[in-house]
Structure formats: structure tokens, C-alpha cells
């Protein structure tokens, strides 16, 4: 196409350079990438996905099937962006990728933002109907959001002849809406996902509309999450192409697109031809003619069109060929359109043209309606699918509802808004916006012109997918009858543009093929999103450190100062090990284990979940939650407990300490703290609301340090000189209060996860660092060593203590862990009934066992499969899996834990731990590897 000397909504005084592939081109301010390429003579913008046929721009809006490009270089690059939605800005770099994008590997440095908004009335679409609807809302003092796809309000008006000077009513309306206090006008914004209860996700394009140098300060895109009391869908209609042989050539364009390029961008062909089934297509011929563009004629399949527009065309001296179709096209050597083959009863002739404007009628744009499950029906008179009825809380207005006149759209939009506002109890203001004008004459029901030579493999139904009439016929030949199946067989409508222009034609070709009316066949539905959303826009600011909160204990700075290496446990960061200079993780872990087994170690256990359970019925409540009895616990004593889900599987474990008769301090695993609190709340609220119990999370209210090893008694004595720390004065699982020097009152519990004599001392959280330093100071004479998660895992595995989620999965029962005797026979608890099911007592269930590699230096892989015969061909019979595997200082050998089918009965047997093709022979044994008598617990 060529640029006219005058006209268009472009600024010829502001040329803008941009890159297309490896070439530098120039357009004007006001251009889109699509119009700038057409102006630069780039008729061919890429090749089709399967057949490699040359393709060009064929639309100016959402109907586009080919005009997609890769925008930007490097990390900020975005694939498959519709070229007619890219405003030309300085520094724009685009490359030809019309059907397949390329994702950058680097993180995108651009900023993406989210906003949440509520309104009385959301109007989707800023064309005649939408503007009229928004005006009614504005004048009724309603809170209104108006979302328009294009950078400017006006919709179809902007592509029509008088749009060089925007009509007064539109300019006035735009001014009034922009100035109204409770109206938010969002332009360059796509309403892309419709949610239940009148939710809508909008994508507002911000950064990409600014020159490269000015970006970074503002977000690239903003995702709006809108909840509206009422929604007016004024999404307009999309023009439908006509299927004929070689209908995909560069130079074949929708008729409205040809007008949009003429009026908005001052672009015209050398010689244009129009092929239309309806009166509207004549506008293109008339507008070209008025702009001095040579018009080869109008091809109309109707025998005698007598409407106002055909008459105007004849009066203007434009050749109108009736009862005629374009049956095919011919091309220049590079693939661009050379001529159309026009067929009448008299025969076929070639009409030369460099642009063929096609109009097969208009399809209401109902994607957002269909996303919510809204139905459509085929209207035999309008020859398009119209909404059956709007969804509750929604109104569909203007062309989206099948009204195709300007006055009708404005009146309809205003009426829809009035009805919507009245339903909200608001008093709608304003009088009728526009007046109904005469509709066009009936269009011809023509969707696909049969190929003259019968070769339908070049008659494109969905050119984006290279899907043809031949493909649809092949689908029908395979026995397919439903349009949704045709879609999946042919891939029609599965492209980035969802085959918007292809749906009706696919339905029509299917109807023709199966010999049934289109009303029966219908068209395939639509899914979100209307236009693709980049993942970065979805994540918004929630990436990197803002993706998920990082929780640290009050003692964290001390771990950092000690050079700890951290690991994530849920959201918590916990020290994994504390390497000395030159130490590896294995070295450090062995040293830390040795300290606990032979001297004394200290560990920050503040992350353990802590729940304060209070109330007269607290003991009864805990008795129902835990498999073992808690009611018999005396104040000042603690007890280890396990809780199950209703299906009898292990949910969590921890120590329950009774502080007073009606107050318990419950600890949970670090990862399950929130889930256990929720679990307690659920039962209290929904089943046991007769129990007088209150539960509160106090995990973050306490800083807790564990002191483990036979030297720990001395450390505690130094911290609390007045405390009786003898075995009888402070027995295992005892709870005491003391006030160490320089610290607030502390709670000390004698609990152990290493099998050694051990204590946990807790103070209010802010005093964590002081506590840590006080323990280090009190233990300095003993050479106290801080130990991390790695050492903890080795120490607990040596004792055969299971970890929820490490040994257990959603199918492990207490009995599988050797804790069957803990389950109370005398009281009911959650999961008790399920533990009696046949499947829960089968002898071949996975059971917790220990193992020692036959070679005491060999290390099995955690997660390795346990097999009986290592030489069995794959797939091998798997008996279970390794859950823990470590090197032990205390044992002087490698060892581990495993869950093995009927494992307790296999103790003593040698089996094999197999992973990654490597096999380690292991001998199964009791899970308690170290100090089986528990003598070390008392120091």
C-alpha cells in the first residue's frame, strides 16, 4: 500500500524510526507496527506455519490471523504480539514471527503491576455503544470503568470516513468521560478473562507505548482485576472473511481493515477490488473512490442489491458485478496478490488489483460472554451468532448483540446502561443517545466459494493454522460431526488469535459437508484469554524476593555471623551446617554430630510450630486429636504425641506440654504449624463447637534454643543456678520455669530429638539473640558447638525417630512406624475407626526399618528403590524405598532408614538399594541404631 499525501490520524511532522528484522524503516507518530509496515511496502510479513506460504497483514484489529511479531530484543522480548496493537515508538524493534514466538531465556527486567478495582458499571468496549453506556453511568453518578482495546475511544467510528475529524458527539463524550470524577477510562486495554460473579481481568499496555529510553519508570503492563456490580459488554463485532481458493495471499484484507488503514493511517492500494456479501463492504469502494483511489469494482453474490450503499456506489460510477463471486486469486512471483478470478454465470475473468477487500458479514464479538458459559444462537436473518441471553448481571449492547447501525448501537448502549443501573437501585440519568437508522439490506449467506478445479487444499478456513476446506472435509470423512471435534482435528481456532474469523466458516463448511443446517451445527466456543497474557504480567511484582515471604528467627543474625549455610524449610530459613574454614558439608556435619554425641551442641529450634491451647475442655479436645491420651498429663509435664487424619494416616507429631490444668503448649513440626492450627480450628468450629477451647498460634512469640548432649545439664545449671536439674528433680519430659541472668522468665523443657540428654529453653522472641549468646557463654567451658539441620537429621535417624513427610507420606499409619501401641484403646480419636480397616493392618504394608550397608563405607541414595533381586530385569519388583541415608560418627559406619513392605518381618535380610543404575547391598535391621536402651537420655 502507499501513503496518501493527506489525511489519516498520523502526525507527518514526527517521523519515527524502527527496526523490522535487520532493516531500519520509518513510520509516523500515530502509526501501528502494522500500518507502518504496510506504508513501507512490506506486503509480505512472514510465512505460514505448515505450508510456508507468504502472508501479509489482513486486519486492523482482533480479526488478524497473520500479523503477529516478536517485539523487542533480548530479555524484554515478547512473542506473538498482534502488530496492529503495537503503537510505533522510537526504538521499537520487531521481527517476523507470525505463528511461532521465541521466549527469551533471561529474566525480564521490565516491571509489571497489578491493580484491584471495584465499580458499579464496567463497560467493555469504547465504541459507539460502549461510550453511550459509560456516559449514562457517568451522568448517573455511578462508579464506572470503561475499557477500550485501542489507544483511543471510538471503535468502528474511527475507521469510517468522517473520522479524520472525530464526530462532535464522540469528542464531547470522550471529554466528558475523561473529566468525570467517578469514571476511569482505560485505553489500550484488553478485557481478556471473564470471571464468575462479574469479575474481569484487563490488560493495560503502558510501557510498550513509550520510547525505549523512557521505560522502566512505569510498569510495562498493568493487570486489572475488576469486580463490577454490572457489566455492559459492548465489544462490537468482527468482520468475517470469505473462504475461496488462494484466499490467504498478501494483499487480501478485510473490507473494514482497508477502511481503517485508509482513514486512520492514510494508506491506499494502487487498485482496489471489493468482494462483499453485504452492503457494508460497499463503504470501502465508496471511500477509496472518494479518496481518489482507483476501484476495480465490487463483487457481490446477491443478484440484485438495491440498498442505499450499492446505489451510492453505482451513482459514483463504481462497477458493481452482481451474482458474482471471487473464486480464486493469482499472484506475483513473490506471492503478492496480482488479480482476483471473478466468476459469474457468464464465466470467469481475472480482475487485476493489488488489494482485495473482503467482507463476509460481521460476527458479534462474544468471547467474554462465552468464557462464562454464555450461549449463542445462529440468527438466520442477521447471518451471525448472537447471544441467546446475557448472563446475570450483564448486558450485551450494540454490534455485540447484533445491532449493526451507528444510531442503533448508541441507543442500545445507553439503554443497556440504564437497565443495568436501575437493577442496582441507581437512578439512570440522560436521554436517548442516538437514533435508530435504517438497517442495511439482507446479506448473502455465502461462507465458502467452492474451488473451481475442486482443489480445496488452498481454500483457507483458518489461515493462521494453515487449515483448509480440504482439512474439514477430511475430518468429516473420518466420521467427525461436532464442530468442537472438527476444531481439534483440524486445529482450526487453536492459534494465538483463537481463529476468531474462522469459527463461523468452519461451522458452515462442516454443515455443508454433513448436509445439515448451520443452525444445528453452530460454532465452537471461546476460552480465556481473549488475547495472550505474558507470564510476567500474571506474576506482577510477585517474583524474586517478593514471590514468597522468607521467615527468619530472631537468632538469624547470630547464624549469619557464625557463617551458617542456610536451607529453606517451608518459608523458614534454617542453618543447614556451620562450616569452619576449609570444611565441607560432610566434614561440618560429622563434627557437629560428634559434639552432640560426645560433648554438647546447641540449635535454634524457634521455627517449631507452637500453639497455645486453652480452655476448660482443652484436655478433652487434645485427647480427640492425638492418638494417645493427653488428659492424664500432669501440669509441668510433657508428652510426645501423634495425630492422624480421618483416614488413619499420620498427619503430624510433636510434644504436648501441660502448663496448668486448662492450658497446654503444643508443638508441631516446622512445616505443618499452620496446617495443625487450621485443623484444630476446623474441628472446633464445625464439629465440636460444644468444647470450650481456644487455640492461638504462638510460633513467632517464642525464641527457643535446644541444648543437646551429656554436657547439657551443666549448661542449664549455669543458666539457672537455682533450678534442680537432677534426674529426679527435672525428669525427662518435665517442664520448668526459670529466669536466667540477663533474660526474662524462660520455659525449660526436657525433650530430645537426638536421644541425648537435652533441653529446650524458650524466651519471648525479642530476647532470642541474648538467649543464644547466654547458652553459648554457659556452654563455652564444655566447648558447645552450634549444629544445623544436617546434623539433626543424622542424629534423629541414628535413633530411628521419623520425620513427618520424610518417612511418612499420605498413606503411612502409626503402626507402620512402629507406634501402634501408642494408639489408645480406651478413648476415641480422629482416625481410630479407619485404623481398624482391613487394608490398614495388612502385614505387607510399608513399614519403617533401619538398614546398614553391607560395605560400611557405602552410602545408599535417599529415595533409592529397595529391591530383593538386583539382577531382575526391569521393571523390578520394588519392596520400598530409602528415606534416610547418612554417615555416622557414633556408629563408625553408614546407615539409614527405609520404608519396606513387611519390613519388620524382613529384619536381618540383605536386600538392595538401587538408584540411577547403582546398587548398594543393605541389611535391614531395627530402626533404632544407637543406644537402643535409651540410657543416654538421662545423661
Amino acid at each position, binding site marked *: 500500500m502507499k501513503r496518501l499525501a493527506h489525511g489519516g490520524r498520523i502526525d507527518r511532522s514526527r517521523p519515527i524510526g524502527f527496526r523490522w528484522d535487520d532493516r531500519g524503516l520509518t513510520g509516523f507518530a500515530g502509526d501501528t507496527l502494522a500500518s507502518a509496515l504496510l506504508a513501507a511496502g512490506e506486503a509480505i510479513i512472514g510465512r505460514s506455519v505448515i505450508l510456508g506460504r507468504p502472508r501479509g497483514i489482513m486486519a486492523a484489529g482482533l480479526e488478524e490471523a497473520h500479523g503477529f511479531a516478536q517485539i523487542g530484543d533480548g530479555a524484554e522480548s515478547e512473542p506473538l504480539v498482534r502488530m496492529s496493537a503495537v503503537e510505533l515508538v522510537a526504538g521499537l524493534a520487531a521481527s517476523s514471527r507470525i505463528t511461532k514466538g521465541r521466549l527469551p531465556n533471561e529474566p525480564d527486567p521490565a516491571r509489571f503491576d497489578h491493580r*484491584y478495582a471495584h465499580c458499579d458499571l464496567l463497560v467493555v468496549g469504547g465504541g459507539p455503544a460502549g461510550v453511550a453506556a459509560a456516559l449514562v453511568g457517568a451522568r448517573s453518578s455511578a462508579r464506572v470503568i470503561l475499557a477500550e482495546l485501542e489507544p483511543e475511544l471510538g471503535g468502528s467510528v474511527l475507521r469510517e470516513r468522517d473520522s479524520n475529524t472525530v464526530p462532535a458527539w464522540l469528542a464531547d463524550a470522550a471529554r466528558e468521560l475523561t473529566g468525570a470524577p467517578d469514571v476511569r477510562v482505560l485505553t489500550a486495554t484488553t478485557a481478556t478473562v471473564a*470471571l*464468575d*460473579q*462479574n*469479575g474481569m481481568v484487563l490488560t493495560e499496555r503502558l510501557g510498550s507505548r513509550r520510547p525505549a529510553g523512557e521505560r522502566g519508570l512505569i510498569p510495562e503492563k498493568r493487570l486489572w*482485576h475488576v*469486580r463490577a456490580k454490572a457489566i455492559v459488554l459492548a465489544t462490537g463485532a468482527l468482520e468475517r472473511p470469505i473462504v475461496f481458493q488462494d484466499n490467504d495471499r498478501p494483499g487480501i484484507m478485510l473490507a473494514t481493515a482497508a477502511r481503517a488503514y485508509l482513514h486512520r493511517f492514510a494508506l491506499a492500494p494502487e487498485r482496489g477490488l471489493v468482494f462483499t456479501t453485504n452492503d457494508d463492504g460497499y463503504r470501502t469502494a465508496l471511500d477509496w473512490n472518494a479518496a481518489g483511489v482507483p476501484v476495480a469494482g465490487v463483487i457481490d453474490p446477491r443478484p440484485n442489491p438495491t440498498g442505499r450503499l450499492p446505489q451510492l456506489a453505482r451513482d459514483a460510477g463504481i462497477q458493481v458485478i452482481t451474482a458474482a463471486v471471487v473464486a480464486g486469486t493469482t499472484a506475483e512471483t513473490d506471492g503478492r496478490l496480482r488479480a482476483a478470478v471473478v466468476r459469474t454465470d457468464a464465466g470467469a475473468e481475472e480482475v487485476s488489483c493489488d488489494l482485495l477487500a473482503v467482507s463476509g458479514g460481521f460476527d458479534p464479538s462474544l468471547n467474554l460472554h462465552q468464557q462464562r*458459559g454464555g450461549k449463542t444462537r445462529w440468527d438466520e436473518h442477521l447471518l451471525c451468532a448472537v447471544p441467546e441471553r446475557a448472563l*446475570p448481571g450483564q448486558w450485551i449492547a450494540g454490534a455485540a448483540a447484533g445491532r449493526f447501525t451507528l444510531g442503533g448501537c448508541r441507543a442500545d448502549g445507553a439503554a443497556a446502561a440504564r437497565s443495568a443501573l436501575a437493577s442496582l437501585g441507581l437512578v439512570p440519568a440522560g436521554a436517548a443517545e442516538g437514533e435508530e437508522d435504517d438497517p442495511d439490506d439482507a446479506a448473502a449467506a455465502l461462507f465458502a466459494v467452492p474451488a473451481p478445479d475442486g482443489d480445496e487444499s488452498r481454500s483457507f478456513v483458518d489461515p493462521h493454522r494453515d487449515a483448509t476446506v480440504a482439512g474439514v472435509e477430511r475430518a468429516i470423512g473420518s466420521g467427525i460431526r461436532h464442530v468442537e471435534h472438527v476444531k481439534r482435528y483440524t486445529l482450526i481456532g487453536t492459534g494465538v488469535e483463537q481463529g476468531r474469523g474462522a469459527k463461523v466458516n468452519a461451522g458452515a463448511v462442516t454443515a455443508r459437508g454433513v448436509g445439515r443446517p448451520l443452525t444445528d451445527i453452530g460454532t465452537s466456543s471461546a476460552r480465556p484469554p481473549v488475547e495472550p497474557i505474558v507470564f510476567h504480567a500474571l506474576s506482577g511484582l510477585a517474583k524474586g524476593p517478593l514471590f514468597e515471604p522468607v521467615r527468619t528467627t530472631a537468632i538469624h543474625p547470630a547464624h549469619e555471623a557464625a557463617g551458617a549455610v542456610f536451607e529453606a524449610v517451608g518459608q523458614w530459613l534454617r542453618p543447614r551446617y556451620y562450616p569452619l574454614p576449609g570444611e565441607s558439608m560432610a566434614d561440618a556435619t560429622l563434627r557437629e554430630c560428634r559434639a552432640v554425641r560426645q560433648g554438647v551442641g546447641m540449635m535454634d529450634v524457634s521455627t517449631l510450630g507452637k500453639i497455645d491451647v486453652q480452655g476448660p475442655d482443652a484436655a478433652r479436645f487434645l485427647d480427640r486429636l492425638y492418638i494417645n491420651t493427653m488428659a492424664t498429663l500432669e501440669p509441668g509435664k510433657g508428652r510426645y504425641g501423634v495425630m492422624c487424619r*480421618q*483416614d488413619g494416616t499420620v498427619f503430624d507429631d510433636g510434644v504436648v506440654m501441660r502448663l496448668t490444668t486448662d492450658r497446654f503448649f503444643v508443638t508441631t513440626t516446622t512445616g505443618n504449624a499452620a496446617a495443625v492450627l*487450621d485443623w484444630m*480450628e*476446623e474441628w472446633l*468450629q*464445625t*464439629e465440636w463447637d460444644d468444647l470450650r477451647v481456644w487455640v492461638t498460634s504462638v510460633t513467632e512469640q517464642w525464641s527457643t534454643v535446644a541444648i543437646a548432649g551429656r554436657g547439657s545439664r551443666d549448661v542449664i545449671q549455669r543458666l539457672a543456678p537455682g533450678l534442680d536439674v537432677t534426674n529426679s528433680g527435672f525428669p525427662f519430659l518435665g517442664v520448668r520455669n526459670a529466669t536466667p541472668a540477663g533474660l526474662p522468665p524462660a520455659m525449660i523443657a526436657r525433650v530430645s530429638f537426638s536421644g541425648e540428654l537435652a533441653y529446650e529453653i524458650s524466651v519471648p522472641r525479642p530476647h532470642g539473640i541474648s538467649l543464644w549468646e547466654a547458652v553459648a557463654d554457659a556452654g563455652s567451658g564444655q566447648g558447645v558447638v552450634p549444629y544445623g539441620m544436617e546434623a539433626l537429621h543424622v542424629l534423629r535417624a541414628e535413633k530411628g525417630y521419623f520425620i513427618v513427610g520424610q518417612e511418612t507420606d499420605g498413606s503411612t499409619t502409626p503402626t507402620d512406624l512402629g507406634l501402634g501401641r501408642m494408639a489408645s484403646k480406651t478413648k*476415641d480419636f480422629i482416625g481410630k*475407626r*479407619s485404623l481398624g*480397616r*482391613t487394608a490398614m493392618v495388612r502385614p505387607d504394608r510399608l513399614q519403617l526399618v533401619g538398614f546398614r550397608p553391607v560395605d560400611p563405607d557405602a552410602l545408599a541414595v535417599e529415595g533409592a528403590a529397595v529391591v530383593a533381586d538386583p539382577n531382575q530385569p526391569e521393571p523390578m519388583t520394588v519392596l520400598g524405598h530409602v528415606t534416610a541415608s547418612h554417615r555416622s560418627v557414633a556408629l563408625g559406619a553408614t546407615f539409614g532408614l527405609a520404608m519396606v513392605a513387611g519390613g519388620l518381618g524382613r529384619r536381618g535380610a540383605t536386600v538392595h538399594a538401587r538408584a540411577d543404575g547403582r546398587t548398594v547391598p543393605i541389611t535391614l535391621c531395627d530402626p533404632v541404631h544407637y543406644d537402643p536402651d535409651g540410657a543416654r537420655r538421662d545423661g
Partner: protein
Amino acid sequence: MLLIPCPWCGAREEVEFRYGGEARHQPAPNADDHALADYLFYRSNPAGRHVERWVHVHGCRRWFTLVRDTMTHEIQESYFRPPDAS
């Protein structure tokens, strides 16, 4: 994405809630294995009216019952105490 009417807080976005599954009665303590399995492992999965439990986990933390049409996602009722006859 639903807009859920919490009986205590009013309409809030679905992300503030956690789904609690179909609202059902606990099995009797002496339920046989079939009744127990039915409770633990089977759901009615209707196309239409569904009585379900939700908790406003990032709000008031209260459990409540919601009646929702699984075909249209229309929310018909939201109340605090499940009626015994549901």
C-alpha cells in the same frame, strides 16, 4: 475465580479462602467399612447444586457453608451453621 460471600465479612475474592470439600455428616462411630469408605473416599460430584464448606483463611478464619451451582458457579446461599437436613 469466585467472589465468595463470607457470612461474617461479606463478599471477598476467592484467593482469601480455602475450599473444604463437600459438606457431609461424620460417619457413625460404629459405621461399617462401606459407610466409612463412602465417607472417606467418595464424593457426589453433582452437575448442579452443591453444598460445600469453605474457610475464610486469610480473613476471619471462620468456616461456613456455601451452596453453589457447579455448572454456572452461581452462589445460591452462604451460611454459618449447616442445617441438619442438608
